[in-house]
Structures are given as structure tokens and as C-alpha cells.
């Protein structure tokens, strides 16, 4: 979708570095340590070589010199190790803390973008930006840059040392080594194509397994086992073919590099020894050369290995920044008011709304609600009942018209005070990973234990909680997994009960709640609604009939409104719906 030119990756890189800027000091240190580590690391073989030169043959050993050189080597080695360790510490620190900062900002973004963004993006995708993409930025870019830097320094320094020792042999090494890069690049290209094919086949196989093992009960019910086995083996043998190729190609890299290394070593041995015969090189220098020749291909491979890592990091960074660049919800105006108390009278005037421009959903909708009235929202599944809730609580902004709460335009109130005036119990009852007490006190963390218990009692969940071994201190596992759906909903009711908001938005459960819990929920709802303006997404006929106003929704739009009797007389959609439910 975006043209990823060099300019834009440079911009992305710059932006990541800006994120890392609080850790500037450590970045500079990391580069400095990297430099020192590489230079010292390369000095050691030269020193060892000189030491060997002081032991030419019987009776020709200069012990003093050797001792001095070896002590020096020891110091250099220890220092090089220390610097390498320090370098690792610095890059780790920068990488992990920059990732932390990125994640912090992503989380903040989750709660400041318009809800439309959260609703419109698969949560798995947003989550993978939060976890995986930031990880690849940490690994690829921050650690990668240090690797790249030390790799390049290593190449340059080795080259420098070799030229210093003997320019001709250095030239031989320089000419042969790029061979390994060509070989490596060739192998990478080959295996990358195979890898793509392999991961496509692997993906296909995984989704096949997911579907057919997940749907095993249906497979059994229809006696489909043999047919599914055949298709499975087909995909599997395709995976075998490309998997075998990709594994073979990628496993070529090691032996090929070893071969090139061997070539370099042989070349150094031959030219080095010939030079030594001519007297232009010492034996110790040959030894140093061999060590270098062995090491010289390593940084090349490292540098080429870092490139794809960098690319995937940049791609990840693009996705992360795209999310962070998402516009926040409209800021509150300057003269914004805090809603201190509220009677619950609502006046909706000529509201227009659409999720997608050009596809109007709600047009010219008006509704007047007196304090304490009950409004039932009915309609077939998927008719967009949540749209209405979205507008009332300003999760989405209306396009035209006005919504007045106690005579005040809700767009002139702070979002937080508006939302606090509603108590909301949705069907997908959200609880978080904390104790039951903390969950009930979510809206009022300062509530006393007595208040919490009273709220739980009113929601008919107190007795259940008391039966748990740790009572109110019981941890709720991920998304309330250790509670039944009905219990979760009762917990959410208690949470709202504790806040005593002037208005309510409730969602009746459709199914999967056992009868007794359902009765409790209904009683709790009734308790809560006393004297409060309530909007109920209704499924139960009794709720609908007792409502002051019924809003009938279809395909996202409000098509009828009125009391039960009025709507029955109109003989419209509602009348049909009602009749279909209870005649057969």
C-alpha cells in the first residue's frame, strides 16, 4: 500500500533512533565498546604471532620477549572480553527499554484512538504489533545495528592489520573472500524462494489441521475420515517436497563457507610460506594470517545475516508507527463542562449517523426520554443494537443533530463525566485478571469492603463468592475463564451496582445461561433499574412489554418506536416479529 522507497526506510530508522534517544549515552557507549572490543580482539593474534617468532628453534628462544608479549596478549584478551560483555549489556539495555517505551505508547494509543479503530481492526493484528513487531525492532534494529557496526569495524580492521603485515598476502585474502559472499548470497536467494513456498505449505497444513481436528466431531458425524485423510496427505507431501528442498539449500551455507575458509587458509599458507622462504615474512606472521583468514569470512556472513533482520524490523516498525500515527479521538473543546449530577432526562434531536461515509445508517432520529423511563431496543440478531449504545456513550460521534442530557449537549461535556453517568452491563461480560474484589471495585477503587459486599449481595453473587476458598480475594483467570458466563455477568452487575450511576445500559443474555442464574440476573436488573433511566437491549418478551418506549431496529437503523400497544396497532415489523415468536 505504501511505496517503500529508501527515503521512507531512512525516515523509519530515524524515528526508531529518536525513540531510543533517551538511551543515547548507552548507544554511544555500545559503539565505543564495540570498537574497542574489535580492535583488541584483532590485536591478540598479532601478538601471539610475534611471540612465536621469538621461538625460532633450539637455543634461539627469547624468553623475556615472549613473556612480555604473552602478558600483553593476556591483558588484551581480558580487556577485549570485558568490552564485548559491556557492549552486550549496553545494546541489551537500549533494545529492551526502547521496546518497553514503544509498547507503553501502543498501549496508551489503544485507549485514546476512536473506538472505531479498535472495532475495525482484528485484535490479533493489533496484539501482534504490540508483541511481535516491537520485538523484531528490538532484535533487528537495535541489536542489529551494533552487529552491523562491529562487523564492519572488524572487516576494516582485519584488512588494515593484514595490509600492515604483508600487502601481497592481504590482497590474496581480499580477492578470495568475496567468493564466500557470492556463495552466501546465491544460497540465500535460492533458499529464500524455497522458504516462502515451504511456509505457505506449512500454513496451509496448519489451517487444515486446525479445521479438521477442530471440526473432528463433524468429521465423525459424517463419516468423513477417509476423505479428510486423503486431502491431508496431499498437502503433507507437498510440504515434504518444498521442505526438503528448502532445508537442503539452507544447509549448504555452512559447508560452503567452510570450503571458502579452507581455500583462504591454503592460499595464505602457500603465499605466506613462499614469502617466508624469500624472507619477507616471519613464521609468526603466517600464524597471525591464518587466524585472520579463518575469521575474515565471519563478519561478512554476520553482516549479510543482519540485512534480512533489519528489513523485517523496518517492516515491523512501519506497522507500529502506522498505529501510533492513528489520529486520537477528537480532543475536548476548551469550554468543556464536567457533568456533576444528572437526572437522566435525554433528548435526542434529529441525529444522523453512519459508520462509513456515503452509507447512511441512522437518519433524522429523534427521541425524548424522561428520567426513570425504560427503553427497550429490539430487533433481529446483528441488527446493530450496539450502534445506539455507541452514540449515547460517545464511543462514536454522531454526524448531525444533537444529544442533550439534562438540557446540556453531551459534546460540551467531558467524555469521562458523561460515561461515568452510565452504568453498562454488556453480554460479553469483561472482567480482568485481578481479584474478585478488585473487579467489583473497578469503577470505585476507594470503596470499602462493606460496600463491595453490599453490591455483590444486590447482584445475587455474594453467596457464590463466599463459597470460594479465597472468597473476595479469588483471582479471576484470563477474561474470567474460571467463572460461568452467568456468574461473569452477575459480577459485572455488582460492578455497576457499586457505582450507582443515574442511567443504565443493559444487555439481556440470549442463551447459554442456566435458568436459575438467569432468574437472578433478571432480579438484579430489576433492582438496578429502579428510578434510573435504562436502555435495555432486550430479548425477553416480558422486558419488552413492560418498557415505556420500544425502539425497533433492523439493519442498523431504527425503524419503529413506541409502546408495545402502539406498535402492535401499527402492524409493522415489530408486530410481525412478536407474532412469529409466539404463534407456531
Amino acid at each position, binding site marked *: 500500500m505504501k511505496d517503500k522507497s529508501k527515503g521512507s526506510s531512512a525516515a523509519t530508522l530515524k524515528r526508531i533512533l529518536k525513540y531510543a534517544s533517551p538511551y543515547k549515552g548507552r548507544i554511544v557507549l555500545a559503539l565505543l565498546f564495540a570498537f574497542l572490543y574489535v580492535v583488541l580482539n584483532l590485536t591478540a593474534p598479532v601478538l601471539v604471532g610475534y611471540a*612465536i617468532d621469538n*621461538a625460532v628453534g*633450539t637455543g*634461539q*628462544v627469547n624468553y623475556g620477549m*615472549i613473556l612480555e608479549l604473552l602478558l600483553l596478549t*593476556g591483558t588484551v*584478551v581480558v580487556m577485549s*572480553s570485558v568490552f*564485548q560483555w559491556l557492549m552486550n*549489556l549496553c545494546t541489551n539495555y537500549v533494545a*529492551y527499554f526502547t*521496546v*518497553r517505551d514503544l*509498547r*507503553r505508547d501502543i498501549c496508551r494509543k*489503544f485507549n485514546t484512538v476512536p*473506538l472505531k479503530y479498535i472495532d475495525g481492526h482484528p485484535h490479533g493484528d493489533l496484539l501482534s504489533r*504490540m508483541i511481535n513487531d516491537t520485538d523484531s525492532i528490538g532484535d533487528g534494529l537495535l541489536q542489529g545495528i551494533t552487529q552491523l557496526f562491529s562487523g564492519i569495524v572488524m572487516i576494516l580492521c582485519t584488512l588494515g592489520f593484514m595490509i600492515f603485515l604483508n600487502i601481497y598476502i592481504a590482497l590474496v585474502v581480499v580477492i578470495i573472500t568475496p567468493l564466500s559472499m557470492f556463495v552466501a548470497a546465491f544460497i540465500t536467494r535460492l533458499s529464500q524462494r524455497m522458504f516462502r513456498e515451504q511456509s505457505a505449505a506449512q500454513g496451509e497444513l496448519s*489451517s487444515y489441521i486446525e*479445521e479438521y*481436528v*477442530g*471440526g*473432528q466431531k*463433524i468429521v*465423525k*458425524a459424517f463419516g468423513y475420515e477417509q476423505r479428510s*485423510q486423503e486431502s491431508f496427505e496431499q498437502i503433507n507431501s507437498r510440504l*515434504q517436497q518444498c*521442505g*526438503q528442498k528448502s*532445508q*537442503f539449500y539452507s*544447509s549448504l551455507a555452512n559447508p560452503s563457507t*567452510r570450503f571458502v575458509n*579452507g581455500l583462504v*587458509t*591454503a592460499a595464505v599458507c602457500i603465499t605466506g*610460506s613462499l614469502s*617466508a622462504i624469500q624472507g619477507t615474512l616471519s*613464521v609468526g606472521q*603466517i600464524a597471525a594470517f*591464518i587466524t585472520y583468514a*579463518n575469521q575474515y569470512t565471519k563478519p561478512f556472513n554476520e553482516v549479510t545475516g543482519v540485512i534480512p533482520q533489519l528489513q523485517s524490523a523496518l517492516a515491523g516498525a512501519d506497522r507500529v508507527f502506522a498505529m501510533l500515527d492513528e489520529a486520537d479521538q477528537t480532543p475536548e473543546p476548551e469550554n468543556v463542562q464536567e457533568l456533576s449530577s444528572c437526572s437522566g432526562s435525554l433528548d435526542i434531536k434529529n441525529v444522523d449517523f453512519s459508520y462509513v461515509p456515503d452509507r447512511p445508517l441512522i437518519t433524522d432520529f429523534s427521541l425524548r426520554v424522561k428520567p426513570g423511563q425504560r427503553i427497550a431496543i429490539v430487533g*433481529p*440478531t*446483528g441488527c446493530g443494537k450496539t450502534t445506539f449504545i455507541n452514540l449515547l456513550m460517545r*464511543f462514536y460521534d454522531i454526524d448531525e443533530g444533537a444529544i442533550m442530557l439534562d438540557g446540556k449537549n453531551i459534546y460540551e461535556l467531558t*467524555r469521562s463525566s458523561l460515561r461515568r453517568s452510565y452504568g453498562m452491563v454488556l453480554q460479553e461480560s469483561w472482567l480482568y485478571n485481578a481479584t474478585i474484589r478488585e473487579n467489583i471495585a473497578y469503577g470505585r477503587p476507594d470503596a470499602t469492603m462493606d460496600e463491595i459486599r453490599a453490591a455483590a449481595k444486590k447482584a445475587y453473587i455474594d453467596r457464590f463468592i463466599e463459597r470460594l476458598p479465597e472468597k473476595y480475594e479469588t483471582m479471576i483467570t*484470563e*477474561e474470567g475463564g474460571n467463572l460461568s458466563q452467568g456468574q461473569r455477568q452477575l459480577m459485572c452487575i455488582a460492578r455497576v451496582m457499586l*457505582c450507582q450511576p443515574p442511567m443504565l445500559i443493559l444487555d439481556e443474555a440470549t442463551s447459554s445461561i442456566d*435458568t436459575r442464574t438467569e*432468574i437472578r440476573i433478571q432480579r438484579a436488573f430489576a433492582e438496578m433499574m429502579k428510578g434510573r433511566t435504562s436502555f435495555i437491549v432486550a430479548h425477553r418478551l416480558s422486558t419488552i412489554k413492560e418498557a415505556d418506549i420500544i425502539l425497533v431496529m433492523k439493519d442498523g437503523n431504527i425503524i419503529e418506536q413506541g409502546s408495545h400497544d402502539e406498535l402492535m396497532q401499527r402492524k409493522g415489523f415489530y408486530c410481525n*416479529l412478536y407474532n*412469529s*415468536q*409466539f404463534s*407456531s
Partner: protein
Amino acid sequence: MFRLRRFLKGYIFQLTVGPLCKLIEAVFELMIPMITADIIDTGVKNNDAGYVLSRGGLMVLMGALGLCFALVCQKSASIASQGFGTKLRNAMFRHINTLSYEEIDRIGTPSLITRMTNDINQLQLAVAMLIRLVIRAPFLVIGAMIMAFMIDVRMALIFVVAAPLIALVLYIVMTRSVPYFKAMQKKLDRVSLISRENLSGNRVIRAFDKQDYEQQRFDSANSELASTAVRVGRISALLNPITYTIAQAAIIAIVWMGSCYVDSGSLQTGQIIALVNYMTQILLAMIVVSNLVVIFTKAAASASRVNEVFDMQPSVTEKTHKDISPDENAPAVVFDNVCFAYGSGGYALKNISFSVKRGMTVGIIGGTGSGKSTLVNLIPRFYDVSEGSVSVYGNDVREYSFEQLRSVMGIVPQKAALFSGTIEDNLRWAKKDASDEEINKALRISQSYEFVEKMPEKTKKTVTAGGKNLSGGQRQRLTIARALVGSPEILILDDSASALDFATDAALRKALRDETKGMTVFMVSQRVGTVRYADKILVIDNGELAGQGTHNELVKSCPVYREICLSQLRAEEVEN
């Protein structure tokens, strides 16, 4: 792990030739430092350029030969390991197909999927490494030691000290960092849990105005993760510097002691260089060995997870593959004092007895977890009863072959799942060669005809995995259609109308009644409206049959049924 070696059968050739070739390459590699020493100690010392060139040529030749051998090995490894993985996957899929509901429920689908993908991939990698490195790396370590002994026994002592020391450091650093890695994974899980909660609960968080609180909660988990990660880094960052230092210390010792022996004439300079090179080889090989240990530890864990699946025996097995003759006059389904328990748990169903005549419509109602679904799952023998018996057409279900028993039934499971493919592919599950007419009829009865016709591709529309590109209601109606193709004699609807609105639900029931004369229908539901006009209603409460009869009978006689009715309907609606 070794039990899985049966899947390596047929790859004996690759398994022998591969490591052998790698061994030859390693031998060549070990010779190189010796040749280097020769070149220096003979060639350079005697100023013999010819010797230098011939030995140099030998080095190149050995390198080239080594490459060839290595390629043969890599090829063998890729063939054997991928073949092994493929066979293993096929066998596992086949085995899973034979398992009954009970076993699949016990392991769980997500776990089966990871076992078939990640775990098998891990084992595949282990097989490849077995061929490529398991012989080579230790051989290089030992070989380099032997070469050192061959050069000079006294010098070899340095190797005897240094090599185990490197191994020890590798061991300590690795075992020390493993618990930290686990801790880090936990912290990361927490960060992703809070992120998930912030996404799924976004509305609630905003409704309670708790954005700041959530941010704090996230920040603390997030910072903890970062500091744990830095702590882990501190330990694992030690690995390279320490091993490097030990190897270098050994090299310094080699040069120092070597110089003394050179002085006394018992060692030559080139041999010092060779020893230095062997030390470097040992260091590199050791690091490979430590990686191998990690790979094989993981593989062993994967192997035990894979074997767990193979060890699982289906609890429901066929007595016969032959068809037996059903009794024409017997009732369609009879439950005789049936008890059922999942695994070793308490009874999920207790003392259930009822009889269903052919052509009857039976409604089954009760709360969540009351045992409704369990009850209907016993009819196609997805589970076996613990006590009592279930009979279909006069024979115990255990007497039939799976194929005969299940071919007379159309089953609509609770979870409305379709499979990727076209709508038509999905509808042809029960009957591969169903005519268009049959398909259209099934679509009409299930109230799907209209919406399918509205789609531009009609029945050729592609369905994505699970049917995610259709609405819940559409999916549910198509699963009903799928069961109807092939005109089953017994239709089981397991709460299959929950996603339908009342109007569609009613139309569906009407069509089922009118169009499927003679079909015995079981209808599980939580809604009174769905079951109230059934010929017989079974009320299940807590695994027991609380009552059976028609709506009017039960309203009077069964308190549980009355309670359910009152929770859903108003009093006057219950009565009429």
C-alpha cells in the same frame, strides 16, 4: 524419543551415509592444521617451494573433497528428516481420526494442533541435526584432542584442562539462564494478557473512565519485563567473552610451554601453530555441542507430547464392520436406564430412560451443563454409556458399525462450523453425489435458500475456514442444510438455532415439520419457544430426567419445566 524411530524406517541409507560423509569431512578438517605445520616446519625451514606448493595443493583438494562429502550429508539429512516428519504427521492425523470425542476433549484441539505442527517440526530438526552434527561436533572435539596428543603429549595436557573448562562454563551459563528465560516468558505473557484485556474490554475501560489505571497496570508489567530481560541478558552475555578468554588463555599457555620445548628441541614452531588452530576448533565445536543439547532437550519434550497422542486408545471402538439388520417395528431410539460419566468424574447423566417412536419430534430442554448435549451425543455413539443401553431401531448402538449407525443420522452440532471450500462442497459432506435438487431442498428447509440465492456466486461461494465470512445465523442454517442433504432418518439438532432470530427459528421449525415426514427429530434448546410444540419434551436437570411429556402435561406436572417457562414467558403465555 526412541520409540519414534519406527518412522525413520526406509531412511537407513541416509542415516548411515550422511553421518559417515560428515565424519570424513571432519577428518579432512582435522588434518589441515597438521599440513600447515608440515609446510612451516619442512617447507619453510628447508626453503623448499615445491613442497609448500604440493602440500598447499593437497589442502585445496581436501577442502574440495570435504565440500562434496558435506553436500551428500546435507542432502541425506534433508531427505531423511523431512520424510520422517511427513510420515509422522500422516500417522498422527490418521490416529486422531480414530480417537473418540472423549480423548479429543481431554487433550483439546489447540494442543493437538501444536503437537502436529511445532512438536513435529522440532523432531524433524532433531533428525536433521542427528545426521549433520551429532557425530561431527563431538568427533571434532575428541579428534582435535587426539591430534594434540599426537603432536606432543605434554602440550596436550593444556587441552585436557581447557576443553572441560569451556564445557563447564557453557553448562553453567546455560543452566543459569534457563529459569530466567522462563520467568521472562511469564512476564511477556502478562504484558500480552493486559494488552488483550485492553482490546477486548476497551468499551468497559472507557465507560468506567479507567484509561489511566490501565496504563499504570500495563506500565508496571511492561517495565518488569524490560528489567527481567536486561537481567537475563547480563548472564547470557557472559557466554562468549568467558569461553573466548579461556581458549585464549590456553593458547597463551601453548605458546609459552611450546617455546620452552622448542628451546630444548623437542617441538617445532609449526607445531605450535597447529596446536593453536586445534584449540580454536575445539572452542567452535563446543559451542555447536551446547546448541545440540538445547535442540535435543526440546526434541525429547516434543517426542513425549507426540507419543502421548499415539498412546491414546479410542474408548469407543467398533465391534463389527458388517451391517446388521434393524428391526422394522422397534421404536427409533430407546434409552434404557442410561448413566454416563466423562472419564472418572461424577455422573453427567443418571438413570435416563425414554423411548421415541419413529417420526416423532423430541424437544430436549434444560440449563447449561445439565447434560442435554451429552444425551444426544450418545445416540450416534460419540461416547459410550457407562451403564444401561441406548438402542436405535431395536439394536444396541454398540452392535452397529460406525458407518451404518451414523449414516442414518443427520447431526447438527452446537458449534456451527463450516469448512473451507464452496458452500456446495460443504453441503455434499454426507452424500458426495447429491443432486442439485436435493441440495436446494435442504437449503429451503433450513431457511438458507434465500440468502444463498442473493449471493452472486450462489452455492459456489467460497467459505473461509470455520465459515468466518458468513454471519453466525447463516452459518448455523447451512450446518442444518448440510445435515439434511441425504435425507437422514434421524435428525439431531444440538441447540442449533441459538443464533437465529425468533422469526427464522419459527419458520425453520415449521419447514422441518412439513417437509420431513417420517423423520425422527431431536431438538436440543434453551428456549421454551423452540420445544413447546414437540411431540415429546424431555426436561433435563443436573443430569437427571426431571420430566417427559408434552408442553401442557409438563407445565402441570414438572416444577423444573414450569420454572424454565416462567423465566422466559409471562404467566398467561405459559398457560396457553
